[in-house]
């Protein structure tokens, strides 16, 4: 009962804060230690230590898309929430499925007889002054 009151109170306070455009904290619990210490997902910058990732950002909303972006970067997610909202178990499942799909595709690509990703970049261009100029010298800052 007490927990309910506290949750209701927190939600009320958080709702007021949202109305004022304040920053909310986000938290994700991972199924295993994070694959990287920092990443950007769901439009916010996350910092991860062991199995916990935290972030802060406006809005306080959570989404499967944001969750899957984080999962793709750091690994499967067991819990994903902000101060005022949390992903349901069904949404978490969807989040991890989407992320795993991307990871699975990468794993297949890595295993098979290499079909590397390809891209053609814009042209790099440099035109110096006429040849025969002074020899190149470099001075490094002390």
């Amino acid at each position, binding site marked *: 009962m007490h927990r309910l009151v506290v949750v209701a109170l927190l939600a009320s306070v958080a709702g007021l804060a949202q109305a004022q455009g304040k920053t909310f904290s986000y938290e994700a619990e991972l199924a295993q230690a994070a*694959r*990287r210490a*920092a*990443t*950007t997902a769901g439009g916010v910058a996350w910092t991860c230590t062991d199995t916990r990732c935290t972030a802060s950002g406006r809005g306080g909303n959570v989404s499967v898309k944001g969750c899957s972006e984080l999962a*793709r*970067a750091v690994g499967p997610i067991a819990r994903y929430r902000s101060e005022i909202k949390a992903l349901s178990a069904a949404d978490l499942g969807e989040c991890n499925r989407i992320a795993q799909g*991307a*990871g699975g*595709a*990468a*794993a297949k*690509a*890595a295993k098979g007889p*290499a079909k*590397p*990703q*390809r*891209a*053609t*970049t*814009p*042209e*790099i*261009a*440099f*035109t*110096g*002054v*006429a*040849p*025969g*100029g*002074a*020899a*190149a*010298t*470099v*001075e*490094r*800052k002390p």
Partner: protein
Amino acid sequence: MRVALLIALALPTTVLAQDALLEVPVRVANVSAAASVGSVTCAVFADPSGPTSSVGYLGSGSRWFALANGAFAGRITVPVKFDAGPGPARAYRCVLYFIFKDEGRTLTLAAGRLADPAAVEYRAAFKAATGARLVYEVTGMF
């Protein structure tokens, strides 16, 4: 992270296998005779913002090319191995370097430094032609 990326970009690497191939059109001309070799180094990222934020860095690779009479025009294929994280790569950043001799030392200098008057740590005699089309680095998405 940024320092690590810069180091990775600056050091030419030998890549035995690759997870990405970047086709980079290169056109350089009138480069000082001190430089006989140029190189293109590419870094790839799982995060679309990687080229500016370094988030999601996956790996890098280099390919050098010989300058003939201070010029080169062609397409360089740069292999990149994902040795810092799992793919897929979403974005890339490729940078032009010149490798040159200076008092018996072999030095590598990012071409982009040459046009930056504020870069006091380096001063090179490779001056870019006034009004020439100069593109020292390119970024993009897979």
